[in-house]
């Protein structure tokens, strides 16, 4: 899936979040730009993009927004009231952490639970820490040469040949980067990942758990609706014939059409063996499937299942217009970067 652009925060939105005027925001930016040798830096294509070439308006990444928020927190003049409010509510800190949370939300699609731990792909780890593969490799090597290297299976693991880091591994890496990076705003960013990370991951994990519960509920309801009968072979579970499994099949695959994953009408009860046969026919479980695919499969392999054909054709009429969010993202991405599309 192509990654979305990370530059999503407009100057007005950022100024509002920081409770300053847009003019004051550009004054702060001028300070960043004035001294290239100080520890505060805003880099084009990393922290911001020029949104409007004529007027020089900028659009920021969460890292850019974070750097400005951190600078204001360190250098901004505060009234006594502001200081008291900051002391009581950690207002500024919350704003900074919100930018980190945004990045965590945008880069947690790979989050998986394994051995009671939560793991993220290396690509997502790099994106969340706002660093590069090369710098992450260096941090890993530094930890490897430390007194307590990262522990395989606990801090990182290879899943299907892809390197994943657990939350404890991410913590160790972010801790290392928050001490070793040269740029202050990058160090602070990695430190904030420690602070804001787990709560955000927990929210994502909870949402995923709830979604799975909703899917299970919809599948159970679909099986009740279909009277525990395979809709293709019409084999029913009875006291004399119960030695087979029934699967709740998503007519539009749940991964590619997540908005239909907990919709009862999108689920059909079929025998597990037929279910496996269909997915094999379709090229594997990870391939997207639609009502049209299932129709074609039934016509080829179970042409006598006229009721099932009629039912799936009906589902196709209802949901056939729907588009997978993954395809939508691809189209949007092509719109953003026409060169890539070419």
């Amino acid at each position, binding site marked *: 899936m192509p990654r979305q652009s990370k530059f999503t925060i407009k100057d007005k939105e950022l100024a509002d979040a920081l409770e300053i005027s847009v003019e004051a925001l550009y004054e702060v930016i001028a300070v960043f730009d004035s001294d290239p040798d100080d520890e505060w830096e805003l880099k084009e294509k990393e922290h911001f993009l020029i949104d409007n070439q004529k007027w020089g308006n900028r659009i920021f990444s969460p890292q850019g927004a974070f750097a400005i928020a951190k600078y204001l927190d360190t250098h901004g003049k505060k009234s006594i009231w502001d200081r008291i409010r900051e002391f009581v509510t950690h207002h500024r800190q919350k704003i900074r952490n919100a930018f980190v949370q945004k990045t965590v939300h945008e880069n947690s699609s790979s989050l998986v639970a394994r051995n009671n731990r939560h793991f993220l792909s290396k690509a997502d780890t790099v994106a969340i820490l706002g660093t590069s593969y090369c710098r992450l490799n260096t941090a890993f090597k530094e930890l490897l*040469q430390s007194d307590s290297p990262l522990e395989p299976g606990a801090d990182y693991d290879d899943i299907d040949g892809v390197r994943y880091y657990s*939350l404890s591994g*991410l913590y160790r890496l972010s801790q290392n980067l928050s001490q070793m990076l040269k740029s202050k705003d990058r160090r602070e960013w990695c430190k904030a990942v420690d602070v804001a*990370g787990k709560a955000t991951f927990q929210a994502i994990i909870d949402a995923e758990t709830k979604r799975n519960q909703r899917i299970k509920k919809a599948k159970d309801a679909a099986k009740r609706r279909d009277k525990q009968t395979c809709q293709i072979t019409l084999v029913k579970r009875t006291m004399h014939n119960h030695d087979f499994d029934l699967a709740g099949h998503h007519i539009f695959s749940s991964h590619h059409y997540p908005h239909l994953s907990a919709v009862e009408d999108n689920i059909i009860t079929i025998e597990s063996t037929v279910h496996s046969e269909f997915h094999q026919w379709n090229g594997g479980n990870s391939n997207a499937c639609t009502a049209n695919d299932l129709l074609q499969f039934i016509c080829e392999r179970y042409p006598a299942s006229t009721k099932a054909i009629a039912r799936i054709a009906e589902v196709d009429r209802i949901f056939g217009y729907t588009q997978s969010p993954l395809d939508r993202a691809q189209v949007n991405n092509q719109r953003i970067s026409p060169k890539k599309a070419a």
Partner: protein
Amino acid sequence: MAKKSISPAIFNKIQQLSETEGIDAQILEDFALFVLGNRRASKPKVLSMGELKGAVFAHFEVSSTKDMRKSGAYRMATDGMDKLNLRLKESWEQLYRQFVGILPGEDSQVGEACINGVDIFKYFKPWTVFGLDAKTSSEQDIKQAYRQLSKRYHPDNKDSGNARIFDRINLMYRSITAVA
């Protein structure tokens, strides 16, 4: 007498040294007992609950147990660990070992699960266990140290083999030869 007071691991080491270096095993046993006797005489200072907490709080940059429980850093760092009962001192000792360092008195331990003074099930310190310097050791040095330890603890070794220790050594070897 001596055999009863020293651990099997030390006894095996004595036998090994006696064979390879040609030193009388009795002299080595006496020396081991002398060292152990002196260690017992100077009991290391045990950290109090307050000292343990203080060190762990400093690591997570918090000032109370309540703040630590809420801290994102703490929650991330302990993700996947067995649930800790923070009213118990042993839980704080576990946190200290994991995030702060070696507890006083646990820096030169002896016992079956101890290699180079480290209890390998309490600490994940591969370089110490392998007896190597992380900064200067070559790939060859690591392999050599690993071979020596594997030979000793391989389950097929009837004298000193131990599957659990062997697995832990393998894990440590993987950790110091891994790539990002």
